[in-house]
């Protein structure tokens, strides 16, 4: 399993990647939509975890662009916002079960990743 984490908060996304790696999940991270698109062009990912509010491009638009390049990829949205609009936009794309509010609990995130990929995985 290989996943891509996209969030403009570098400290958040790098630490999350490290915690996933401890649990045996191979996660790369980037802090912009452009970098995410470059990564999916050159690497294979099963799933992307996207912040719904990232600079310049919205998480929803980024998902659509990634999907156009990698139709099989799965997605989970993260948000720091509790706004109804964001929830509607994000959950419309992924289903409400794949829309997480930060701070994200690592066990919940892994459950959602496994659910999205239809697989089971032991945690730490």
């Amino acid at each position, binding site marked *: 399993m290989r996943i891509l984490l996209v969030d403009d908060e570098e400290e958040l996304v790098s*630490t999350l990647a490290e*915690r996933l790696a401890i649990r045996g999940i191979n996660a790369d991270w980037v802090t912009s939509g452009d970098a995410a698109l470059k990564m999916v062009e050159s690497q294979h990912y099963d799933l992307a975890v996207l912040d719904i509010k990232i600079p*310049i491009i919205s998480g929803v638009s980024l998902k659509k662009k990634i999907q156009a390049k990698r139709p099989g990829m799965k997605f989970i949205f993260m948000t*720091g916002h509790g706004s109804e609009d964001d929830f509607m936009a994000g959950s419309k794309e992924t289903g409400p079960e794949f829309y997480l509010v*930060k701070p994200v609990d*690592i066990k919940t995130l892994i459950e959602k990743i496994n659910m999205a990929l239809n697989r089971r995985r032991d945690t730490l």
Partner: protein
Amino acid sequence: MIAEQGIEYESALRFFGKMSASVSHEINNTLAIINENAGLLEDFALMADKGRAIDPARLKTIAEKILIQIHRADSIIKNMNKFAHSVDERVRSVDMNDLLQLMIELSSRFASMRGVTIELKRPAEPLFITTNIFFLENLLWQFLDFAMDITGQEKTVFLNADITENHILIRFSQLEGLKSAPRNTPSVTMTEGLLDALKGKLTTNIEAGMIILTLPKDINR
């Protein structure tokens, strides 16, 4: 006070809400980072329980990262506190540069979302203005919001304040898109009442890519 001066209550409330929502988002981000780093410490503790050696330098780095986020949150909260207190008095004196700096910091997430930087060219001397601080903050936000949309390729808005005998001039420059902007100034309906209330004047220099806001040094005179 707001209704008396012809400023739409809803517009003022919308501005206050927008800033508050942005600040709460920023604080939430710092908490999310602290949460991940605390979780990582917990992971290391569990690994140590299982006999894995943990590098103390790594633990120190995590503690430092947590402290950085605490300082960041503290700074965000201080800005929010200053902003919240701007409605305490109808009119008071403030250093214009401090106020511009505050608005830049409160607008930082909106700038970051657009990939824009706002730079203040700050003079050494303070430039005191006596005015309605909340109205001025609201007006500055309307201009910043507009300026961020028309920065052109440089993606930087320059701000500076200057003083004349009776006025303070605030310049928003490097607005390359001013020529082709669908409107030459921020929304008239949003700024008209604020400009009137602040006894301010707006000048647009399209060729220079600059908007100049002129305000009386003392609104009571």
